[in-house]
């Protein structure tokens, strides 16, 4: 009996200790957590739901080069990026937005002129490149001047002949805009219009521009499409004559090469040499992806060729020799370029048209209006 009583008393003691510890625990929890609460209260902003958007790698594509974990696209980040992309405020004249030179129906490239236009009617030196599958690219622009998608917009934003602005000035315009501060907060969960957020939002919009639904893609994935005789003949010609550079699903090996295009004395654009300073990179430009090539005319870095026929005529008869000419364009008999008959050219063009992805060109998510 005594033993039992003692045991009960001990139990009571243990319980009371536990009770104290329990209160202490509660106190601790409140004490420490209140710090966190107060800091978010100070910002005076309550985040609103902002679901992440799914990014699916098409089954015929390689891995992404863009680190999506560092900047996962969200509904409101994408929305902000899209608004920024189509906003002329980002340029010094209030007109020339990113979308001014990157028009969706032409796979986000620029038409009606050879090289692209900027503010005050200034004319650039290069042809705006199409935008698609940017999450899979190693570096950007014709000469690879930037290695990261997030920093690419610095170039057009600040180039005198493009948008002619300063990043600081763009940020101050956005801060004073009636809509942007709230959109930035909704996209990133707290208040603040910053350079980082602006570039990340633009990237969120751009990485989702995946073009992977052309007839060629469906053929690659073994979906139920059949090439016509001309398309199939063109595909075989393409594999032997073009695919060493315009390689794989991305339609580019992402290398820099001199394809023998005679240097335009007006620009004397030495291409990749601008970035590396290496004479061996002179007149080399990035091998462009041929996706949507049917509608991304004009062609070449300076847009000097108007049609696909012109391009193939150039490769068969127009390649000019120079020190940095790509060796792949030197034939064993000493001739330059890629020998092609006119029938072969027609077949190649039939194949190239299978690279057009109408689902992408008409995708309403990217549409300005």
């Amino acid at each position, binding site marked *: 009996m005594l033993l039992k009583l003692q045991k009960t008393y001990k139990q009571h*003691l243990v319980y009371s*200790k536990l009770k*104290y*510890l329990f209160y*202490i625990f509660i*106190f*601790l929890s409140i*004490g*420490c957590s209140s*710090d966190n609460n107060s800091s978010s209260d100070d910002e005076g902003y309550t985040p609103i739901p902002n679901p992440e958007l799914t990014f699916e790698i098409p089954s015929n594509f390689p891995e992404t080069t863009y*680190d999506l974990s*560092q900047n996962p696209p969200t509904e409101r980040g994408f929305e902000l990026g899209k608004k920024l992309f189509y906003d002329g405020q980002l340029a010094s004249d209030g007109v020339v937005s990113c979308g001014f030179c990157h028009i969706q129906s032409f796979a986000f490239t620029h038409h009606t002129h050879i090289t692209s236009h900027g503010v005050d009617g200034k004319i650039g030196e290069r042809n705006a490149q199409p935008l698609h599958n940017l999450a899979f690219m*190693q*570096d950007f622009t014709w000469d*690879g*001047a*930037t*290695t*990261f998608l*997030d*920093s*690419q917009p*610095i*170039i057009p934003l*600040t*180039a005198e002949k493009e948008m002619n602005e*300063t*990043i*600081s000035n763009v*940020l101050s315009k956005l801060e004073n805009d009636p809509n942007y501060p709230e959109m930035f907060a909704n996209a990133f969960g707290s208040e603040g219009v*910053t*350079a*980082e957020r602006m*570039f*990340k939002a633009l990237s969120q919009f751009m990485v989702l521009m995946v073009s992977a639904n052309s007839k060629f893609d469906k053929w690659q994935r073994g979906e139920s499409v059949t090439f016509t005789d001309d398309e199939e003949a063109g595909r075989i010609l393409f594999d032997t004559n073009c695919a060493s550079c315009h390689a794989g699903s991305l339609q580019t090996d992402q290398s820099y090469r001199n394809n023998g295009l005679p240097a335009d004395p007006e620009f004397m654009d030495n291409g990749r040499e*601008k*970035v*590396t*300073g*290496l004479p061996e990179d002179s007149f080399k430009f990035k091998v462009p992806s041929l996706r949507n090539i049917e509608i991304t005319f004009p062609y070449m870095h300076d847009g000097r060729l108007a049609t696909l026929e012109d391009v193939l005529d150039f490769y068969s008869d127009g390649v000019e020799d120079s020190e940095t000419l790509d060796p792949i364009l030197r034939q064993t008999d000493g001739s330059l370029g890629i020998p092609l008959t006119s029938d072969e050219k027609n077949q190649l063009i039939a194949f190239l048209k299978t690279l057009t992805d109408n689902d992408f060109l008409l995708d309403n998510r990217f549409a300005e209006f």
Partner: protein
Amino acid sequence: MRIYILILASIIILTGCSGDSSPNTPEVGNLTLDFNNLIGDNNLTLNSRVYTNNSDETYEVSELKYIISNIVLTSATGASHTIPVEDSYFVINQDGATTATLSDIPVGNYTGIRFGVGVDPTKYPIESGTLNFIPTAEEAGMLWTWSAGYKFIKFEGIYTTTTDEDEPNTFLYHVGSHGATLDNYKEVELSISKEITSTATASQTINFDVAKIFDSINTLSLEEKSDIQVDPENAPKIAENVQTAFSIQ
């Protein structure tokens, strides 16, 4: 018994919350790095003083700027404190700010400092915070807009050579990384002896010997080349020289 429990509880509370570095538990301090641009023993004077390099060329400096980044402090115990990326990028400008103020450093004795000259291509702009340095760099003219890259060092002025003393020419060194092909980012490691306290902002002077831009591991002659920008041969030489130019008084 209850007393013991309360004491124990107090200890738990105090130690438990102190890890949050909340404002009522002062355990961090500030450090100002003061970059002192020198030629010989004297402060660099822009635009008026004439200096001579080892190639017997006389020069005046009109502009000297460089980017300091990725600052890490090490303590005697071997522990290190890394300044968060978003607070770790500075433009040092002889004609403007020559200091970098670091805050929220755990108090204690520090024996070493490590920092980058330029922008580490593995961090930029992947790591959060680095893109926010762009406006600062842009305002200081430290961006190559055509390449979306940084100028790590910007050094400009006029010079004359022994053969033509009457005709001053301009010189211009802009050094940065060349796309992904050439990385000119350098790290500098120096010994210091600095106590960080929570009561006062500590200050550490770091000397930068401007003459070493021309003459250190490599010798650069202005007559040979006075405009060095995207230059895969000479830009790395300047970056190597600059890496040796920092010291503690």
